[in-house]
C-alpha cells in the first residue's frame, strides 16, 4: 500500500512539530525517517498510524483519504521502542491478541489462531518461547515478539518507532539485518523512525531526512550520503569538515584554494561554507600546481583499526580538519605529527550563507587541472 502525505501540519502548544510535510511512500518499500530528536519524525509516524491527529493536511492510503479513520481501522502494525507487550499475557496470547479481538463474524477459529501464531513465531524464530511471559525474555526477543504481534493482523503498513533504540549495539546490528531480510521476504510497506544514521543507511530503501518539522531530503541511502541537498543533511549523515569560504562569480575561494561552483554563478563576494567529508581529502607531501591544495600541519595521528584518522591544522587560519584514510594507504607513506603536508579535497560542496538550503547537488570541478572528482 502506498502512503501519500499532503501538507501535514501539527503543533503542540507553541512547538511546531510538523511544518507542512509532503511525502510519498511507495508501496512495498522500507523507508527510514531520520533526524535528530525533536525533529518531528515520531509525530509523523504516529499521525500515519492514527495515534495522533494532524492539525492540517491529509494522509492517503492507496489514494484514499485515511485522515479521519480510527487507528483500529487503518490496518497498520505499530512497533514501539519499548515493545509495549502485554505483561500479563503469554507470548502466544500477545501475538494472538489482534486476532482474538476481532468481531465474532470475522474472528478465526481457535485452531486457525493457533496455526497463525505458530507460523509467526517461527517467522521471528521464537517458537520455543510461546508459553513464556514477556518479563522472561531479553530485549531483542521482546522486540521480535512485538513485531510478530503487529504482523498477526496482516497490516497493510508496518510502522516502527525507533524499534532498536532500547537494545545494545550488538543485538541492534543483528536485528537490523534480520528486519531487512524479513522485509525482503514480506514486501510490506514499512516506515521506521531512527536517529541513527548508520541504521538508516544500512537498512532502508529510501531515507527521509527531517529537521525541525520539515523534510530536508528524501532519497536512496547513496543519494543522501553522496549528494546531500542541504548543509543539515551533510552534517547529519557522516562526519564533515567545514571551511569558511567566499564565493564570487562561480568561483569559491577557501584559503588559497580556488574551486569552480557553477551553481553559484550569480553570487558576488558572498560568504559561504565549504563541506568536505574526511574520507574525501587527499594528503600530499608536495603542493600541486594551480590553487588546488592547502598547506597544513599534522597535529595528531590516530590508528582506529581499519582506518587511520589524521588531525590537521591549516597553516594560516588555524582551522582544524579531519582526514580519514585506509590503513594500507597510511602505511604506504606513514605521516607523523608535525609533518607539513598539503591537503587536496577530492569532493567539496559549497553552500552560501543566505540561501544555504538551496544548493543543488552538483559535483564540483577544480580550477587548475580540472581533474574533477
Amino acid at each position: 500500500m502506498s502512503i501519500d502525505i499532503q501538507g501535514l501540519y501539527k503543533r503542540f502548544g507553541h512547538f511546531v512539530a510538523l511544518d507542512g510535510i509532503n511525502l510519498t511512500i511507495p508501496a512495498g518499500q522500507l523507508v527510514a525517517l531520520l533526524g535528530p530528536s525533536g525533529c518531528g519524525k515520531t509525530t509523523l509516524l504516529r499521525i500515519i498510524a492514527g495515534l495522533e491527529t494532524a492539525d492540517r493536511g491529509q494522509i492517503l492510503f492507496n489514494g484514499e483519504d485515511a485522515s479521519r479513520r480510527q487507528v483500529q481501522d487503518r490496518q497498520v502494525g505499530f512497533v514501539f521502542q519499548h515493545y509495549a507487550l502485554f505483561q500479563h499475557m503469554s507470548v502466544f496470547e500477545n501475538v494472538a491478541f489482534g486476532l482474538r479481538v476481532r468481531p465474532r463474524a470475522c474472528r478465526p477459529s481457535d485452531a486457525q489462531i493457533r496455526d497463525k501464531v505458530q507460523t509467526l513465531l517461527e517467522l521471528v524464530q521464537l517458537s520455543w518461547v510461546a508459553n513464556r511471559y514477556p518479563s522472561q525474555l531479553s530485549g531483542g526477543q521482546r522486540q521480535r515478539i512485538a513485531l510478530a504481534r503487529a504482523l498477526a493482523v496482516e497490516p497493510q503498513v508496518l510502522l516502527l518507532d525507533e524499534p532498536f533504540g532500547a537494545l545494545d549495539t550488538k543485538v541492534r546490528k543483528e536485528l537490523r539485518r534480520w528486519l531487512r531480510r524479513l522485509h525482503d521476504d514480506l514486501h510490506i510497506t514499512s516506515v521506521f523512525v531512527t536517529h541513527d544514521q548508520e541504521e538508516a543507511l544500512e537498512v532502508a530503501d529510501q531515507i527521509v531526512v527531517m529537521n525541525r518539522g520539515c523534510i530536508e531530503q528524501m532519497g536512496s541511502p547513496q543519494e543522501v550520503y553522496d549528494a546531500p541537498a542541504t548543509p543539515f543533511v551533510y552534517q547529519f549523515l557522516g562526519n564533515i569538515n567545514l571551511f569558511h569560504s567566499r564565493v564570487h562569480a562561480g568561483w569559491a575561494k577557501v584559503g588559497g584554494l580556488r574551486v569552480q561552483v557553477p551553481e553559484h554563478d550569480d553570487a558576488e563576494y558572498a560568504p559561504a561554507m565549504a563541506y568536505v567529508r574526511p574520507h574525501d581529502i587527499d594528503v600530499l607531501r608536495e603542493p600541486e600546481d594551480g590553487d588546488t591544495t592547502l598547506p597544513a600541519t599534522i597535529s595528531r595521528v590516530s590508528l582506529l583499526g581499519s582506518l587511520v584518522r589524521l588531525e590537521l591544522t591549516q597553516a594560516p587560519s588555524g582551522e582544524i580538519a579531519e582526514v580519514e584514510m585506509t590503513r594500507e594507504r597510511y602505511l604506504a607513506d606513514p605521516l607523523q605529527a608535525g609533518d607539513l603536508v598539503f591537503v587536496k579535497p577530492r569532493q567539496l560542496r559549497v553552500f552560501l550563507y543566505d540561501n544555504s538550503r538551496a544548493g543543488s547537488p552538483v559535483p564540483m570541478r577544480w580550477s587548475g587541472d580540472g581533474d574533477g572528482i
Partner: protein
Amino acid sequence: MIFRFRQPSVLPGFGLTLGFTLGYLGLIVLIPLAMAFTQAFHLSWDQFWRTVTAPRVLASYRLTFGAAFLAATINTGFGFIVAWVLVRYPFPGKRLVDALVDLPFALPTAVAGITLAAIYSSNGWIGHALEPLGMKIAFTPLGVIVALVFISLPFVVRTVQPVLEDLEAEVEEAAASLGADRWQIFWRVLFPAIRPALLTGFTLAFARAIGEYGSVIFIAGNLPMVSEITPLLIVSKLEQYDYSGAAAVSVVMLVISFLLLLLINLLQRWSRIQRGWETVI
C-alpha cells in the same frame, strides 16, 4: 538436599537485621497476641467452645465478617473508579479531591461514627430523606456497612492509583493498533494489569473493616443478634470483667482474620506465579 539457613550474599548484616526483625515483631505483635491465647485458655475447652459459639457471638461474627466483606467489595468497585478518575482525567480541584480521599485515614473514627450517625438517623439529612422509602440505615446492619465503607475507602484508591499511573499509554495504543475497541482494551489489557493491585486494596480494606470499632458503634445501634459487631461484644465482655470470655472471642476472630488474609495472599502469589512474575521457591 542440604538445608542452608543462610543464603550467601554480599549484603552485610544479615544476622543483625534478622535478629532485630524477629525481636521487634515478637515484642510488638507476637507477645501481645500470645497473651490473648493464654488468657483464653484459662477456660476449659468446654467453656471456651460454649463462649465462642453462643448464638449472640455467632451473629456478631456474621455481621462483622459479612459487613467487612461487603464494604471491601463495594470499595473495590468504587475505589477503582475514584482512582481511575484521579489518574486519567485532569479537572479543576483535582488535588483537593485527591486529598479528600485520605480523610478517613486521618479522622478519629469516633468522629466519623458520630457524624455518620447524625446524618443517617431518622432526623438527619439523608436518613430523613430515605425514611419515606422504607430504608433505615442508622442503627441497622446497613449502617454498619456504611461506616465500614467510609473508613476503608482510601485503601483501594491508594493501592490502585500508583499502578494505574505506571501503566504505559503505549500498551493501550498497541492494543488499539491491533484493532481492539475501548471496551476490549479495558477488559483485556488494563483490567488484568491492575487486578493484583485491586486484590491487595481489597485485602487491606477488608482487614481494616474487620477490626473497625470506633465508627461502627455509634451508627450500629448495637442490638444483640442484629447490629452488634464482634469487637463491641469483646468490649462489653471486658466491661463485665469476663476477661477470659473476651479473650476467647478475640482468639476466634484472630484466627479467622489470619486465615482469610493468608488465603488472599496465597491467591495473589498464585496469580503472580501464573504470569511468570515470580518463581516457585
